[in-house]
């Protein structure tokens, strides 16, 4: 994971760039999987560089924006549909997300009335700080067609801001669309495993030799569990140690899946482990 693990806002977590550098020198691959649907992977590559991380290329980065676009391409284009029959996608989200959908070869529905003959075949809900009632109503109109997919980039209810405040996440917008349409969204991001499928397809990862490092128990750690990876919780982000302990003490089987195998105060604490 990236937010809360490698950086917080515009600041890299101290020691995180060095950790990645050490991994590279030890011949250990580092891949990045983020639920943040605001940025394209090209923007994320620039962000890594700007925050002091060396050698991270866009192909190493799997964001929910990219993977949602790949998912929609699979369902709308590759699934037997030819280019003209694929239909359009109505995106609730910013330019980063819209760009990924376009780059996947899909066409976006504009704001306002659809052109006749080009149906909207999917509504994609992402992080949309320009979300309005009007867009919600428009999405519901498209979803009256049972053939129209409802997809969400991630389930995150909120994201932390640097001063301890929170900003609403895609999960809250998806809840509104689901309630209005009576449909359940297909959620691409963690803890669901689709993003791991994308990683395996491109890089052929062996789960038994892979560690998932994240800061959010309900997404990162559960994702690791769902994909058969060992998990490390880092405490530089969303989840507190007490929350992990509470899940550990719980009687519910589902709660156990949210308990990480290990925890560290910061991802930089892994550096000594890399020294022989």
């Amino acid at each position, binding site marked *: 994971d990236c937010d809360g693990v490698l950086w917080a806002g515009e600041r890299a977590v101290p020691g995180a760039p060095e950790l990645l550098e050490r991994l590279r020198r030890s011949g250990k691959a580092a891949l990045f999987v983020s639920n943040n649907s605001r940025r394209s992977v090209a923007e994320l590559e620039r962000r890594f560089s700007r925050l002091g991380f060396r050698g991270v290329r866009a192909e190493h980065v799997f964001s929910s924006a990219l993977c949602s676009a790949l998912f929609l391409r699979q369902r709308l284009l590759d699934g037997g549909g030819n280019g003209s029959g694929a239909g359009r996608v109505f995106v609730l989200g910013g330019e980063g997300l819209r760009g990924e959908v376009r780059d996947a070869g899909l066409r976006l529905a504009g704001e306002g009335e659809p052109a006749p003959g080009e149906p909207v075949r999917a509504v994609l809900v992402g992080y949309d*700080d320009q979300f309005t009632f009007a867009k*919600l109503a428009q999405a*519901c109109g498209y979803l009256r067609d049972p053939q129209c997919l409802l997809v969400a980039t991630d389930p995150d209810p909120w994201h932390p801001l640097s001063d301890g405040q929170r900003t609403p996440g895609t999960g809250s917008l998806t809840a509104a669309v689901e309630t209005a349409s009576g449909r359940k969204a297909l959620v691409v991001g963690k803890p669901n495993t689709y993003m791991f499928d994308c990683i395996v397809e491109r890089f052929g990862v062996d789960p038994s030799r892979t560690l998932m490092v994240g800061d959010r128990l309900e997404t990162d750690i559960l994702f690791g569990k769902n994909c058969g990876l060992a998990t490390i919780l880092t405490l530089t982000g969303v989840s507190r140690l007490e929350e992990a302990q509470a899940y550990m003490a719980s009687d519910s089987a589902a709660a156990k899946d949210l308990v990480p195998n290990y925890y560290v105060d910061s991802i930089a604490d892994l550096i000594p482990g890399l020294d022989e």
Partner: protein
Amino acid sequence: AALPGPAPADWVQAPLDPAVRAVLVGFDEHFSYAKLCQALRYLLRGGPDCLLVGTNRDHRLPLEGGAAIPGTGCLVKAVETAAQREAFIVGKPNRFMFDCVAGEFDVDPARTIMVGDRLDTDILMGNSCGLTTLLTLTGVTALDEARGHQDSECPARHSLVPDYYVDSIADLLPALGE
């Protein structure tokens, strides 16, 4: 108030009104992410001391021709999800509104009929408050839905079953005739 900048990072710098002690979510065709953001700020600042109240949970408001617009329930759900807490819902099927009516008008539930078109709000409230319930079919509910709940094994669904139904509220006129 005007937003102090284009992005959430700017919006959360705007000062909060120190007197706010409740967030009330009603039908808002001008609902936006910025307002959702603001609601979340008040709820986080106040914790349990800031109430979260929703007027109702209706999913959809039907229009003519089968179309519908999103209902208040969608906006309540968005706030509840972001804040990770549950709203107190004033509207049906909650009995709060019946208690308001009964308080003002000396209503005897045993001699009162609730007429409504929606099973999960009107009929459920009526049944919960000990009223006789009458479903009218001029609104959102088709008879099949009521029968489905009636035939169900689940006891909770039985509370959605009206005592009677009519095709239209006008069908009551003969019963009131001389």
